[in-house]
């Protein structure tokens, strides 16, 4: 204990250097680029910014496409994530650890490779190409391809978020519900879902942010057809390549704004999650010092 102030005093210059270093890196790599995006976007006023977004039909379409593709991908991920996390957290079966590792593949594979893989399967020359042609379904270079690619890259986000939470909660509450007569759906809606809601929301917010911003995989499967398969990130890049920097920055600012909203949402949800895990801890430990009522004269 006596050595503690001495250590702090001795390391004060060091900690100042470290703090300054950290602030410098964050400022240079995160704050400055983000600020410059907004600066460039609004440099000619809000009217010009709005015009850049609203007057170009291709840009309008890109925003619309992103706002439809991302929610569909996130919805697929939500359903898949809950089901997969429940399977992995509640059951022990051969291949379980392999399955958990497979959930992580989209994180370790480059999105471009993921996009190419989808083309190899669903493209016209791909594995399922003849079948899809016969059905007259267009997946690659079309809207379904965008959803597939986006779902692929965001796949781990929901399931990864839920597995540890479900494992921490354990199956006891669900079993209690079953023994009280609840059906499978009743257990899910009344017990499981309320218990995992914040973790699920956290996963959804992260998946949504990633889905909106995805570039690589979508770039490969979209064929980047302006006004048809360009999502917001693709549109930003295209405008930039066409030397239309103000318009490009305007779309970029929408994406960056979305990131900021995500950040706030993430912060709020993470505080709820911490509160929930404290609750769980409290529910496990039994504070009998609080037992004032006891069981005086229990049965009359």
């Amino acid at each position, binding site marked *: 204990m006596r050595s503690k102030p001495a250590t702090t005093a001795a390391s004060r210059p060091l900690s100042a250097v470290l703090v300054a270093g950290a602030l410098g890196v964050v400022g240079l790599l995160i704050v400055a680029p983000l600020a410059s995006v907004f600066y460039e976007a609004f440099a000619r006023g809000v009217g010009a910014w709005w015009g850049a977004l609203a007057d170009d039909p291709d840009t309008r379409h890109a925003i619309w496409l992103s706002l439809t593709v991302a929610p569909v991908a996130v919805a697929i991920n939500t359903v898949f994530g809950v089901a997969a996390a429940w399977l992995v957290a509640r059951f022990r079966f051969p291949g379980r650890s392999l399955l958990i590792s497979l959930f992580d593949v989209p994180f370790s594979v480059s999105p471009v490779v993921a996009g190419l893989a989808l083309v190899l399967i669903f493209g016209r020359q791909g594995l399922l190409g003849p079948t899809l042609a016969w059905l007259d379904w267009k997946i690659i270079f079309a809207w379904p391809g965008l959803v597939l690619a986006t779902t692929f890259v965001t796949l781990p986000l929901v399931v990864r978020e839920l597995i540890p939470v479900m494992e921490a909660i354990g199956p*006891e*509450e669900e*079993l*209690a*519900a*079953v*023994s*009280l*007569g*609840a*059906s499978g759906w*009743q257990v899910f809606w*009344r*017990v499981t879902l*309320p*218990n995992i809601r914040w973790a699920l929301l956290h996963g959804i917010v992260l998946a949504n942010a990633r889905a909106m911003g995805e570039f690589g995989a979508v770039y490969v499967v979209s064929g980047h057809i302006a006004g048809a398969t360009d999502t917001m990130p693709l549109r930003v890049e295209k405008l930039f390549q066409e030397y239309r920097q103000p318009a490009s920055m305007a779309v970029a600012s929408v994406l960056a704004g979305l990131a900021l909203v995500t950040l706030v949402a993430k912060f709020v949800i993470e505080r709820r999650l911490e509160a929930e895990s404290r*609750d*769980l801890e*409290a*529910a*496990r430990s*039994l*504070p*009998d*010092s*609080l*037992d*004032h*009522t*006891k*069981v*005086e004269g*229990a*049965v009359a």
Partner: protein
Amino acid sequence: MSIHVREISKSFGAFRALDRVSLEVPEGTLLALLGPSGSGKTTLLRIIAGLEFADEGTIEEDGADITARHARDREVGFVFQHYALFRHMSVFENIAFGLRVRKAPNAEVVAKVEELLRLVRLEGLGGRKPAQLSGGQRQRVALARALAIRPKILLLDEPFGALDAKVRVELRQWLRRLHDEIGMTSVFVTHDQEEAFELADTVVVMNHGKIEQQGSPDDVFDHPATPFVMDFLGNVNVYHGRVENGRAFWHGIPIDYPDYPHAQAREARVYLRPHELELSAPAAVANRLGTSLAASILRVVRSGPITRVTCRPHGSEQELQVDVPTEVAHRLQIILEPGTHVAITPRKARVFVPDPEYVI
């Protein structure tokens, strides 16, 4: 409702949790499954509840085979070890859960929950969340929740395990009175013999997935059927000796054991409970040579109404535990302190060969 378990076996991988267990629980009984962890007692309870399914064997309720019946159709109230209360629901909604999923009309739910809150002495706490309750209160919420569905059987998994000592004793007396009042067939699991003996009508001692002994608390305590039961029921002095010609020897003192009349000596274990040994001044038993043992006191520990005396018989390295009621200790003609010479007389001893026991 009566329960009849027939030849139930259950394995988890290579571990045999239950090995052809049969058990009958007559209507209205309060039965304790007593055993160390891993003895299969919780598995048996969960199989009766339908939360686990047996590999072999059948379960009957009032003679009807319910082996394959789903947990939600078994009409069994189950109280989990850590209560498993629904954390995000109020106490009221926890108790109401079983009625809500049955789509009971709201008025009926409210009336029933209010009645149960009164029964478990938690009136006015219906709006609280489980996290705002003490351990004892949560335990009673779990009980009320299980009773709300009007179960025919009540099953409790280590119901007092997570509570502190004082609350545990209070709750256990309360549960006994509650059982006498509602008279529901109940089975509870415990590793605490005191709990089993105080609470239950019938005690079932389990070990390694098998039932070692089953009977009334007095019966099991006074006539342990196996060395395991003897050991498990606590604190016992074990002496590894020999048996021959109908007698076993404990530190040279003969103990009759007519079940083994053969001349060829065999190994036997002699079990003596600390409270079944008597301490006296060596002079007082001088005329009873051959029935008591000369020893010296090593340690004396007073633990409330019992004084625990550790002795070492002369000429032996083994320690011997003797429990003397503190009241009696005050009246003894000897000073209980280390170094005092005493005579130890067994009032009761059990010999396991491992054939049936014999009591002198």
